[in-house]
């Protein structure tokens, strides 16, 4: 197995994320699976940003601590990440700014001589990396041309000078493998929603969901969708309800703080039964917390948000393929059952970069929902066995469509009569049974690793990547519930069969999934919890797991 890890670091504003993406794409063009973790503080200039790009001949979804190449634009990068290096690590740095052992390249001089601008320093460093890793210049040139649309001639000259300055040190051999597209988790979510027929997206910027807004706004023309950025998250949720009432399949996106403002609209959606998909990207809280760092601290908030009792789907994908497939599902399910669907992710997935294998997601497509088939008068809340009333959209040939946030009768007219109040409450919760039945048919619990092992790691969201890798090494089973509401008890119990030791792995302090499954009578023996805003690296989780199961 070939496995390489490359860290590039510098200051905010020096294009580290972009540089990481270029390196990821180069490795992808060599036929590797890639995964990129991007670490940045909440500031625009200065500070320390770094990206760890990992390439492997097998599918990966996590970074590792040890690195094979260190690419330093500033001194801070060398000093901060020296601990990751060993004697074999190739260190390439900007000799105009940095003092270190390794290979210094006078990149700023090169950029000046070639008439480039200061952001092109990272292009020079990427060029040097290319040679040090023995990557053919053709590949370098092809990827740089794809990634850098502006001033490509100058960029190529600078990259070439970097390339020519160093010697091959640790060759990364090309693989005869398919080059997969590269997507962030958010992009995979966006594409999944589009696959199921998304027509409108409404959002107010908030890390880690902003990049989904940017992606969909940037592609709105290609997909003929409407993307709206209103005054606040209260408006976001209510506008989405308006769009859906008028027939448009609509999603919203936010993080915990923004979702707080959406919760009044969420409860309204529970009562109006007007569908909506909510992409909820978790970051460290409470409150503003650590905006650009990861967490899985909002599960119980999402499971319980909104006054009153109403059913909801909560779906938590953990990699790009799951994000694609299950975002499509989330949209279809919300329309089919007229209940809110959450796509609950963490920053690690939302902003992480993955090789996306198109063959893996099941083709979901746009599924229809139960529609009204005529018969006057139209009753928006017609009583049915499943609790789901046939949907119709304005304008409706002589019939009126009344939706209502108050308790209401079948037609949508406000009522307070106790019999009707109880009827409506029961209708809402009856839907949950139908929702659960459907969920159980969709393989809602993933198992990975050694599936016959009696010790299992229990995780959700992006931790599926790191858990799978550790479990494969150590001969453990991994269990990842993809759907957290309505909770697929049957599939979960099936996944647990013969498990004698269950160890939860979560990015929070109180074990939120642990508490959820314990509430269902499941026994979690140990929990490995991380709550410092950083995702587990492969080595870190390996070490914790060894301690726990020793």
């Amino acid at each position, binding site marked *: 197995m070939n496995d390489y890890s490359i860290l590039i670091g510098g200051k905010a504003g020096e294009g580290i994320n972009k540089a990481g993406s270029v390196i990821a794409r180069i490795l992808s063009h060599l036929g590797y699976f890639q995964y990129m973790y991007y670490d940045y503080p909440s500031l625009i200039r200065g500070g320390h940003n770094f990206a760890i790009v990992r390439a492997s001949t097998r599918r990966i979804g996590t970074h590792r601590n040890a690195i094979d190449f260190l690419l330093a634009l500033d001194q801070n990068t060398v000093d901060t990440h020296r601990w990751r290096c060993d004697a074999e690590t190739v260190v390439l740095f900007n000799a105009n700014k940095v003092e270190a052992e390794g290979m210094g390249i006078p990149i700023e001089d090169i950029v000046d001589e070639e008439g480039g601008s200061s952001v092109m320093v990272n292009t020079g460093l990427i060029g040097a990396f290319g040679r040090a890793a023995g990557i053919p210049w053709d590949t370098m040139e092809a990827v740089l041309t794809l990634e850098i649309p502006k001033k490509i001639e100058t960029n190529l000259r600078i990259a070439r000078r970097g390339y020519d300055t160093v010697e091959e040190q640790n060759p990364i051999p090309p693989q005869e493998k398919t080059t997969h597209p590269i997507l962030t988790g958010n992009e995979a979510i966006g594409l999944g929603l589009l696959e199921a027929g998304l027509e409108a997206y409404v959002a107010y910027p908030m890390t880690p969901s902003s990049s989904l807004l940017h992606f969909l706004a940037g592609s709105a023309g290609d997909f003929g969708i409407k993307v709206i950025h209103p005054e606040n998250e209260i408006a976001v949720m209510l506008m989405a309800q*308006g769009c859906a009432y008028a027939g448009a399949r609509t999603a919203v996106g936010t993080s915990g703080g923004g979702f707080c403002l959406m919760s009044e609209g969420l409860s309204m959606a529970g009562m109006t039964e007007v569908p909506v998909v909510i992409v909820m990207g978790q970051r460290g809280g409470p409150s503003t917390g650590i905006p650009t760092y990861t967490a899985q601290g909002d599960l119980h908030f999402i499971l319980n948000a909104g006054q009153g009792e109403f059913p909801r789907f909560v779906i938590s994908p953990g990699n790009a393929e799951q994000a694609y497939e299950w975002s499509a599902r989330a949209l279809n399910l919300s329309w089919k059952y007229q209940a809110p669907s959450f796509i609950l992710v963490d920053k690690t997935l939302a902003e992480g970069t993955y090789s996306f294998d198109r063959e893996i997601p099941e083709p979901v497509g746009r599924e229809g929902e139960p529609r009204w088939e005529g018969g006057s008068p139209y009753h928006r809340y017609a009583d049915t066995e499943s609790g789901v009333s046939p949907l119709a959209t304005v*304008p409706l040939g002589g019939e009126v469509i*009344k939706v209502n946030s108050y308790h209401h009768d079948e037609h949508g007219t406000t009522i307070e009569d106790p019999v009707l109040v109880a009827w409506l409450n029961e209708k809402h919760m009856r839907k949950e049974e139908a929702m659960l039945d459907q969920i159980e048919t969709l393989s809602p619990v993933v198992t990975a690793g050694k599936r016959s092992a009696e010790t299992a790691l229990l995780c959700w969201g992006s931790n599926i990547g790191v858990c799978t890798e550790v479990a494969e090494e150590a001969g453990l089973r991994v269990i990842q519930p993809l759907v957290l509401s309505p909770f697929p008890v049957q599939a979960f119990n099936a996944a647990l069969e013969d498990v004698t030791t269950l160890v939860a792995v979560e990015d929070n302090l109180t074990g939120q999934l642990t508490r959820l499954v314990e509430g269902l009578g499941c026994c979690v023996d140990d929990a490995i919890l991380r709550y410092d805003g950083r995702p587990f690296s492969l080595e870190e989780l390996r070490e914790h797991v060894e301690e726990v199961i020793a």
Partner: protein
Amino acid sequence: MSRRLITDAKNTWCPGCGNFSIQHTLKDVLAGMEEEGRSLDNVVLVTGIGCHGKMADYLNINSFYAIHGRTIPVATGIKIANPDLSVICCAGDGDAYAEGLTHMIFAAKRNIDITLIVHDNRVYGLTTGQYTPTSPLNFHGRSTPAGSLEKPFNPLELALVSGSTFIARAYTRKLDHLRSTLREAIDHRGFSFVDVLQICATYYNMTESYNARVYELEDHDPADFNAACAKMREWDYSSDAAIALGTFYRTSAPTFDEEFSKGRQGDEERKGAIAALLDQRV
């Protein structure tokens, strides 16, 4: 066949409530539109929560009985999703000016083509008589028994500076004027705002005072921003000044809903667009 516009829902407004006037005026306006051949299937009413909100139950048209303060974002979403619809908001003064003020300012700013009718009884009716943003200074409401300490704001001026392209005031005891104003507002392309001075028979019955002070605007050019502003400032919602009724300001500007792509991409076309995007990411 024209539709019956009043539903069978039991009406629970207090006797003498100005909401009846708005209800029946709106009914007449809708009937008039239908007579002219406009289908009422294309009309959607969005209401807030308050006495005014009951309009959703009482009028037999498409309706979205939303939540307190949030008529405008719902209406905006409806209009963006289907620009062929006529979307009318019936909001309260507590609803539109307190709980949901941001939305009103932004609707005006973006000139979304919807109509906002504020049932301005200058009191919280349904929560039994507290002061609102348009109650006069020193209003003795149930949350301000010693008199409110805040001066009201002038919603017309607020709409004007926010970019509203149609601004009018009407009164529930001047029915002909109310009717023509509502019709004009609905027909206007862009954000239309009508502040309707509505009698609350129970908590703030201003009938005598309004009757003595209202007059209809004459020789006023609604295209003249400065004249509109001056007229709006005649009465600050607190003093005993004369109260002008009519269309203060009207102008035309591109509407927000025009700016979005129309029609839905077919499933095959969508699949192709996704595949093309993935190809670009290789």
